[in-house]
């Protein structure tokens, strides 16, 4: 059969099941170093919340997680996990009751408790230096990929694919490859019900430049500059903005951004489960779906890396519901 060699970067095998822990370990150590006693964080899918609660348990830091009421409903198991780890999960009912609203509440909590609290931002978002700091902690993904691929193939990959919510797994994967111009980089956003509907999270494809949570970036917004709700079957991609560095990489055309619908992601979720025995996170399934398309344009001398940002155990229930509809 034609087509490239396909490698997975297995962030799903990390403790807590996603790349998120790379960042939370780094930031929790900083919090400890700064003498902070408490940590606050937002979470969408619950993966960042679980990763934060985990390091807080380890380092004996008090942990408060803000999570949209809608996401609490979609990700019950992760809510229980966070509580089991000793975190307090606060439900957020404002706005669309998803990730951006959880960020608002976490920021409000932080300014009120800034003396003893550190905010562990979960993606390459928010005010400086968060986007840079989160990128640096996540860049281990790209560094390991580079080293390991050079060992196996004695050359760099020809293409690298990652899903983009806020953009942390993608930024961490891409960053060490930015200067390697022969490596094609592909970021995949959530197209939800389709980019021509009102229900998607395809910020880079359909958004316009704006400012939210301290970053200038592409945003889903109205003519009057009000932020719009994002929609995706995967809670972790449900954010109406995208990291400022991704916005820049789009503008200079270093990374090609595309989007994948809920339906395509569901197909990829099943495809990877059946063919490889790996159940991917719904977020990562977006990267898998796009990679299937990209692979068809590549030759068998080439290689392609997919960032498998997380495992799909947390999504099994909602996938079952979606497939039964």
């Amino acid at each position, binding site marked *: 059969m034609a087509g490239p060699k396909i490698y997975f970067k297995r962030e799903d095998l990390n403790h807590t099941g996603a790349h998120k822990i790379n960042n939370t370990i780094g930031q929790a150590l900083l919090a400890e170093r700064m003498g902070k006693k408490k940590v606050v964080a937002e979470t969408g899918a619950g993966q960042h919340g679980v990763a934060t609660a985990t390091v807080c348990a380890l380092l004996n830091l008090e942990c408060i997680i803000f999570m949209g009421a809608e996401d609490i409903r979609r990700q019950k198991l992760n809510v229980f996990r966070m509580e089991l780890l000793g975190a307090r999960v606060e439900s957020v009912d404002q706005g669309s009751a998803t990730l951006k609203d959880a960020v608002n509440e976490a920021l*409000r909590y932080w*300014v*009120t408790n*800034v003396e003893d609290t550190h905010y562990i931002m979960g993606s390459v978002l928010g*005010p400086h230096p968060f986007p840079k700091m989160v990128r640096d902690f996540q860049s281990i993904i790209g560094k390991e990929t580079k080293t390991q691929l050079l060992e196996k193939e004695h050359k760099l990959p020809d293409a690298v694919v990652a899903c983009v919510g806020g953009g942390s797994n993608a930024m961490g994967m891409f960053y060490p490859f930015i200067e390697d111009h022969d490596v094609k980089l592909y970021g995949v956003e959530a197209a939800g019900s389709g980019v021509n509907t009102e229900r998607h999270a395809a910020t880079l494809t359909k958004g316009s430049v704006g*400012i939210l949570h301290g970053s200038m970036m592409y945003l889903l*917004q109205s003519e*009057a*500059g*009000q932020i719009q709700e994002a929609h995706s079957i995967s809670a972790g991609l449900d954010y109406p903005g995208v990291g400022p560095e991704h916005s820049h990489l789009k503008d200079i055309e270093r990374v090609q951004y595309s989007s994948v619908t809920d339906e395509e992601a569901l197909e990829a979720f099943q495809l990877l489960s059946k063919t490889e025995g790996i159940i991917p996170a719904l977020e990562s399934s977006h990267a898998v779906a796009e990679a299937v398309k990209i692979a068809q344009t590549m030759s068998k001398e080439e290689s392609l890396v997919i960032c498998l940002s997380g495992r799909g155990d947390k999504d099994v229930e909602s996938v079952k519901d979606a497939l039964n509809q």
Partner: protein
Amino acid sequence: MRNTITHGREYLETTLNQTLSQGNKIFVPYVMAGDGGLDQLIPNLKFLSEEGATAIELGIPFSDPVADGPTIQEAGKRALEQNVTLKSVIELLKQERYQIDAPIIFMTYINPIFKYGIENFIKDAQEAGVDGLIIPDLPFEQQVLISNHLNEAGIALIQLVSLTSSKKRIKQLAEASQGFTYAITVNGITGARSNFAKDLEAHLSQLQEFSSAPVLAGFGISSPEHVEQMGNMADGVIVGSKIIELLQDNDTDSIKRLIESSKAK
């Protein structure tokens, strides 16, 4: 006949200094534009101005008001449900600004301005008689985005100073502030409070030292007693959430009492 006031930084500063030279403290109420419908806005502004508000902070509703507590969040939500936008507020003021004497300061998050287009916004704000701007989510380092245009148009850009700012930062902000310096009196977001930090007095007196413009205390101030207490430590107050609640309850007497408590006895 329409009056011929030239609005902007100068008008704001003259008005504030006049109040102080009369021995009064400065009182700045906050209202959310379009809360209760846009038709309510001019009557509310007129009432506050005529009752003795020194200047008025006019909130522009935004979908993600991270600096605001529940009262102002809800007011903004009510305004957004009425489809109130930065543009519709400006258009209304272009027609009706002449009815209100008090300087008007827009308090808006940066994204609605950015989406409007910065140059267009400033041109329209000038025509609408806007005297100053407060942009809580635009950090000092990023203000070049708008400050040169504002200086040209003569509209004041007001700096917010937090309790946790270092001495160096306080100095930097106080020196850059135009119109007045906005001293945030609590760690946190807007909303009525019952008491304040013990070290507030030292913080405010340090600010007074660095700031050539008047220093106004805001966030949490919600009773005539607070107004008097702050009046002893600063040049005046900004009252937000409480005014919004009182306007909703139509409790004009309590509003009058709040304003009155800023005047010389």
